[in-house]
């Protein structure tokens, strides 16, 4: 019960930080999307999305199911490339560099832009191997000691180290759902990305695990640019400094989180926030 109370307090803290958006929009722009369209075969999923994503802040995408928020998120690290028949139009620039430039290596891009998925998906390997995998394939560790160091610090940053330090060689799939999701975050951090994309990271988790992840996101934004897709407006309000509302493949409204939730410009946004659509 004490633990639960602690978590609730943590959540309140995050809310406080979101209420003072520390001038999120004053931050430099990290990702710049212009007129992004996505077609799955003949079906158009996204219609001309243009948005700027600020550096070292949390940007959340909200909207009803099927509104295209996940599709857009997956454009940012080109995960849509892996889907048969998906076509992406428009431009997305990371630090002014077009990520759809044919000369750009998608492997390198994904090392710079990490991703956390809706359902925790640790590799069916040990906890250690899960975190060590990224640094290993990208050749980031010079020695075993180096790698150990990366694994420990990544697990620490993901707030998981204390819980798993005695069983690093046990399978990652044996952890609880929330721990698995933090392991996936640690795995993403281990590569040293600049941006972390999170696709509804808490939708498969219970409220306590959700609170822990939200607190973690709040800590991570000091060092990483985070984009999170969520279907929970409360979560968007709690963790993000900037919010974008998607509906039927279009970006309806974007702005400082506080403004979106207290003073939406568009009627559709207002309806969604009031719970009238979605």
């Amino acid at each position, binding site marked *: 019960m004490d633990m639960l109370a602690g978590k609730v307090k943590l959540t309140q803290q995050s809310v406080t930080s979101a209420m003072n958006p520390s001038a999120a929009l004053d931050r430099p722009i990290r990702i710049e999307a212009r007129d992004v369209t996505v077609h799955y075969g003949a079906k158009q999923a996204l219609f001309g999305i243009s948005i700027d994503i600020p550096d070292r802040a949390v940007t959340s995408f909200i909207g009803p199911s099927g509104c295209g928020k996940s599709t857009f998120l997956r454009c940012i690290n080109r995960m849509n490339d892996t889907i048969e028949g998906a076509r992406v139009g428009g431009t997305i620039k990371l630090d002014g560099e077009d990520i759809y430039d044919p000369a750009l290596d998608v492997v390198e891009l994904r090392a710079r832009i990490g991703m956390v998925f809706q359902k925790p998906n640790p*590799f069916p390997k040990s906890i250690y191997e899960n975190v060590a995998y990224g640094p290993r394939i990208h050749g980031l560790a010079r020695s075993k000691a180096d790698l150990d160091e990366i694994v420990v610090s990544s697990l620490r940053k993901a707030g998981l180290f204390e819980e798993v330090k005695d069983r690093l060689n046990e399978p990652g799939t044996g952890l609880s759902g929330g721990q698995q999701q933090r392991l996936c975050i640690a795995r*993403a951090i281990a590569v040293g990305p600049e941006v972390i994309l999170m696709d509804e990271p808490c939708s498969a988790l219970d409220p306590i695990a959700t609170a822990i992840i939200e607190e973690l996101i709040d800590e991570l934004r000091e060092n990483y640019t985070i984009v999170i897709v969520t279907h929970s407006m409360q979560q968007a309000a709690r963790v993000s400094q900037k919010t974008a509302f998607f509906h039927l493949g279009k970006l309806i409204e974007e702005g400082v989180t506080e403004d979106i939730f207290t003073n939406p410009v568009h009627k559709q946004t207002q309806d969604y926030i009031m719970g009238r659509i979605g």
Partner: protein
Amino acid sequence: MATDHITAAREISQERTRLVRSGLRRRHRNEAIFRGLGIAAIALALGFVALLFVDMTRKGIPAFVQSNLHLEVFFDPAIIDVGPAPVASEFASPAQYQAADLRWRRELALLNWNRILEASLMAKVPAGTEISSRELLSIPETNARHQLREMFVANPDLLGRTVPVDILASANADNWVKGNINRSLGDAQQQLSPAARTVIDAFEADGTITNGFAWALFTNTDSRAAPASAGLLGAFVGSLYMMLIVIVLAVPIGVAAAIYLEEFAPKSRLTDFIEVNINNLAAVPSIVFGLLGAAVFINYMHLPISAPLVGGLVLTLMTLPTIIIATRGALLGVSPALRQAALGMGASKTQMVFHHVLPVTLPSILTATILGVAHALGETAPLLLIGMKAFVAQVPATPLDQATALPVQIYLWQGNENRNFFEPRTAAAIMVLLGVMIVLNGTAIYLRSRLEKRV
């Protein structure tokens, strides 16, 4: 008014319960019928398998035991009058020694070793029994004289000495001892003469003939002249070579093809076409693969006839579709979450496949492969068409030598005219083949459970 309303509602609810309940009975009955049918099907299938095993074992077990004659053989200097074996040191050159040795051996081969055999048999025949030389020699297997000669070649010091020798009884004598022959049949229908039968009975009574484990079945190759010495070794080695060829060729090619088709190939009309064709190939009767092998490997590529190499290639072609389909199925079963996790970490497609997808599917691929190889091992029809049903009396030294295979050996023995002797042998050969299959499938299950336990 209100009570009416409540009564009406209750009636509707009761009516609904009655409807559900009447349907329920039918639903439970259907379930019971279906379960009963399932159990019956399983019982029937298990019953047939049990019948097969029991019948095979009942028929085959006697063949693992064979009649042996225990004789005291005197290497009579009066018969073996070829002089001492040449010694290498007495000759000026190795060539001269070889020539002398060959001459000595030829002279030995021309001797009548049956006279020595006959003398040792006669020594055991009870006094007063009338039996001709021909009748007496129908008791040991016809290759006994070669056995004695080889003993002497290996050890010329045996000259003039009497040593105990175990000799296989002939197939007919073996049948008689084991009771495979109806003893009440008339002389005209018996393979052995009355005198020979009397002597065999006497031998059995005094312990000259005893039944021992049929090592010949495992250490000898097939034989027609001396059926009692016919064994499976040649066929076993032939099958082994083919199995190795299938494993070496079909597994890497099949798995690689499946990985390419499933993970890398763009979905197009061409890949659809290839997929349909692979599925069709899996359904092609195996004898067609035999025809293909005969046409391509033997007629066109001029590979040797009856060779395990050609058999292995044909079986590889036959096994490939099975392995490709099974591997693709296994790859398809891998959750997309794992692929996304790997790609999201910046793994290349190849790294995704080899680091994550393949390790997860390895147990299924392995099982499918071993089952495919086991299936190939039991295949007979295509081998008949590439000449592997020839009678081969040597153990093939390389996959290019003539050989036969276990299932073909079963087919050949099944057709042997000495039914009484070869029916149990055939059953025994089937038991050996089934034993190999059980070992293979057991390995598959063991490897699977071990790999699945690993993280």
